[in-house]
């Protein structure tokens, strides 16, 4: 390889170089800003994680697998997976291979960082072509891979249903500019490299195209304009990048290490939250996932639009979207980047100041304790279970039959667990309730705190610190009773039961298997069309502050339809709120898991 230009410079690289400096500068500024915005303790935790070998390795692995290969997307949708990884990984490989070319053939030019990008422009083929053949082949191969990805992307833009996406986002004006620039980059690269292939050399793609072009374009006049165009399009992409959804590319590389460092969203807009909403790729998979999307008017209330409004500081929409959400967490599970929609919203809710702040100083712990008996298991029914006496009674009877020593924490009604208040973003009153509950629980002398409501279960598990006490949901506890042979259940195989994963128990606490084992012990489990992590919220969630009862109807009906996919005789759930919500609309019985167990135990 020899250089065609002695200076190693041509003015057409200027747009690219300017764009690159701009983006690098912007990202550097972004990183510093995020670091400054992080609370001191979080910053230290993060920096420490960057020098801890375990997290460093995890960061590298996660960035490679998620940002380049898009492993999670592959699992969900192979075509979309191929599309994304071909573009991301292909582009990455072009850059890497470009650098290898420069290092191999023109090591003195490694300091010009535009050289690997425009290598073919600057070089002329020499005698040692064989050396470059493999590299040239790989360059053409990855370019082809990217072009396939781009073709799919273009098709997807116009026919998203082919890719299994019913609804996608509407891109903003700048998003469109970025998108079109991205579409153009690689065809232009192919053209530029093809026009110069008879000088710089090429491979299976560029050489035949070069031959083809020269049949009717006998001169090299097209040569320079295409390289200019290539550089300008790259530059456009780089300049608009920070203001488009493509910002997710650098942001995600920041998000992964921050998440791996174990940080939580503290400030609604700054630090970790900012990285979260800039990491949103704007792909819109959360639109289909969002249970509210069955209502057309709520299709713009899912996380992708929240992130967009957060980037634009559109306060009124931010408040509206944050308040409406059911906090079911499905957007996070389907999201490739795992943008934490519910916690971002919770942080926005916490922004508000209230002029009436509740306190619970009038509650007497002693009075509560006087109503609690003695028992190893302390059963806290919670507010919702008090409205479903069927569950309260069934849990008590199952415990009695299994010979468990138990007592009730709130026989006459107790305090709320604090989770609804927490979800509303009001931490102080929530903590005040939690302090009182904690005092009662610790003084009761129990070993196990049993909950029949997943809302309570999650907060007791996540936010209470109860040393020496095991917090258990009744679906898990009953399962253990059966395994320990303390509870016998006769299977009625004729009875087909569909299990609904309550959001707080499934996605919230990761409990999917134990309830299924229980259901299978009592009857034949038939899965819903979308189940486990993909389960659809019942619509009754306390997470939403503003969604009216009437508007939740379609959500509930859709969830019931999903559950009835396998023609079950009854719907079984493990949450009093889900049960009550379904009961208002279901034409088949809706039972709690405790009621199913009790029913099948009676026969024995």
């Amino acid at each position: 390889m020899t250089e065609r230009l002695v200076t190693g410079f041509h003015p057409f690289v200027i747009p690219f170089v300017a764009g690159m400096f701009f983006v690098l500068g912007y990202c550097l500024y972004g990183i510093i800003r995020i670091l400054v915005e992080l609370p001191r303790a979080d910053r230290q935790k993060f920096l420490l994680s960057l020098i801890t070998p375990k997290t460093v390795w995890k960061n590298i692995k996660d960035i490679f697998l998620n940002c380049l290969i898009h492993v999670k997307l592959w699992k969900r949708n192979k075509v979309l997976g191929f599309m994304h990884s071909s573009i991301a990984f292909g582009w990455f490989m072009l850059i890497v291979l470009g650098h290898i070319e420069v290092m191999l053939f023109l090591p003195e030019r490694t300091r010009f960082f535009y050289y690997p990008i425009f290598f073919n422009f600057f070089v002329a083929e020499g005698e040692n072509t064989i050396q470059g053949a493999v590299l040239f082949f790989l360059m053409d191969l990855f370019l082809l891979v990217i072009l396939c990805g781009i073709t799919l992307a273009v098709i997807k833009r116009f026919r998203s249903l082919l890719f299994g996406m019913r609804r996608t986002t509407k891109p903003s004006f700048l998003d469109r500019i970025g998108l079109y620039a991205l579409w153009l980059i690689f065809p232009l690269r192919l053209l530029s490299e093809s026009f110069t292939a008879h000088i710089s050399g090429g491979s299976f793609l560029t050489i035949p195209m070069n031959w083809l072009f020269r049949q009717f374009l006998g001169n090299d006049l097209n040569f320079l304009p295409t390289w200019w165009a290539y550089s300008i399009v790259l530059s456009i992409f780089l300049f608009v990048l920070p203001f488009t959804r493509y910002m997710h590319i650098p942001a995600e590389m920041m998000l992964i290490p921050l998440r791996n460092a174990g940080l939580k969203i503290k400030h609604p807009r700054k630090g970790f939250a900012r990285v979260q909403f800039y990491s949103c790729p704007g792909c819109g998979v959360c639109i289909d996932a969002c249970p509210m999307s069955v209502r057309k008017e709520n299709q713009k209330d899912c996380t992708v639009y929240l992130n967009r409004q957060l980037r634009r500081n559109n306060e009124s929409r931010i408040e509206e979207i944050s308040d409406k959400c059911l906090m079911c967490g499905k957007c996070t599970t389907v999201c490739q980047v795992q943008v934490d929609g519910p916690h971002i919203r919770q942080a926005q809710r916490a922004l508000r100041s209230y002029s009436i702040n509740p306190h619970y100083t009038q509650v007497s712990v002693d009075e509560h304790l006087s109503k609690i008996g003695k028992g190893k298991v302390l059963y806290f029914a919670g507010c919702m279970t008090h409205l479903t006496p069927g569950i309260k009674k069934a849990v008590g009877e199952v415990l009695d039959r299994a010979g468990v020593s138990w007592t009730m924490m709130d026989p006459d009604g107790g305090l709320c667990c604090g989770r609804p208040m927490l979800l509303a973003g009001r931490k102080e009153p929530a903590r005040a309730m939690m302090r009182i509950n904690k005092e009662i629980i610790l003084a009761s002398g129990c070993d196990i705190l049993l909950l029949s409501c997943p809302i309570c279960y999650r907060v007791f598990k996540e936010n209470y610190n109860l040393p020496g006490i095991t917090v258990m949901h009744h679906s898990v506890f009953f399962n253990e009773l059966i395994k320990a042979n303390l509870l016998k259940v006769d299977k009625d195989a004729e009875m087909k039961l569909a299990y609904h994963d309550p959001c707080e128990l499934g996605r919230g606490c990761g409990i999917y298997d134990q309830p299924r084992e229980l259901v299978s012990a009592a009857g034949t489990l038939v899965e819903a069309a979308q189940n486990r992590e993909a389960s659809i919220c019942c619509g009754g969630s306390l997470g939403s502050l503003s969604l009216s009862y009437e508007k939740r109807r379609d959500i509930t009906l859709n969830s019931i339809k999903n559950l009835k996919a396998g023609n079950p005789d009854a719907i079984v759930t493990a949450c009093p709120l889900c049960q009550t919500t379904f009961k208002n609309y279901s034409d088949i019985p809706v039972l709690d898991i405790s009621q199913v167990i009790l029913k099948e135990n009676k026969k024995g």
Partner: protein
Amino acid sequence: MEFGFKLSPSSAIELDKIDLSLYEKVCEIEPTAKTCISCGSCSATCTASEYSGMSVRKMLLDLQRGRHAEVERILSHCMLCGKCTMVCPRGINTRRVILTVSRYYDNVEAGL
């Protein structure tokens, strides 16, 4: 002059002189608030009512009768558990009503 009786200030609420701005704000944000029939389900089921006399029904009524001090007293014990929303036969989003009143209480009181 002595009439044999004293004039005491009337305890009647003069409906046409009440400051309804907070109530109107609440209804603007959560129109279902207007449909309350004072059935008392919310207060009966309320987790906090036993300790404190918390009652969405009373609060909504006090709001419409201009008894704002009562409103503050009632709402300062709410746990936001959502039972009242669940039992309301009119489907009022009581939690949103509570949050809205708690949020704008001072603003309206100060005439903002």
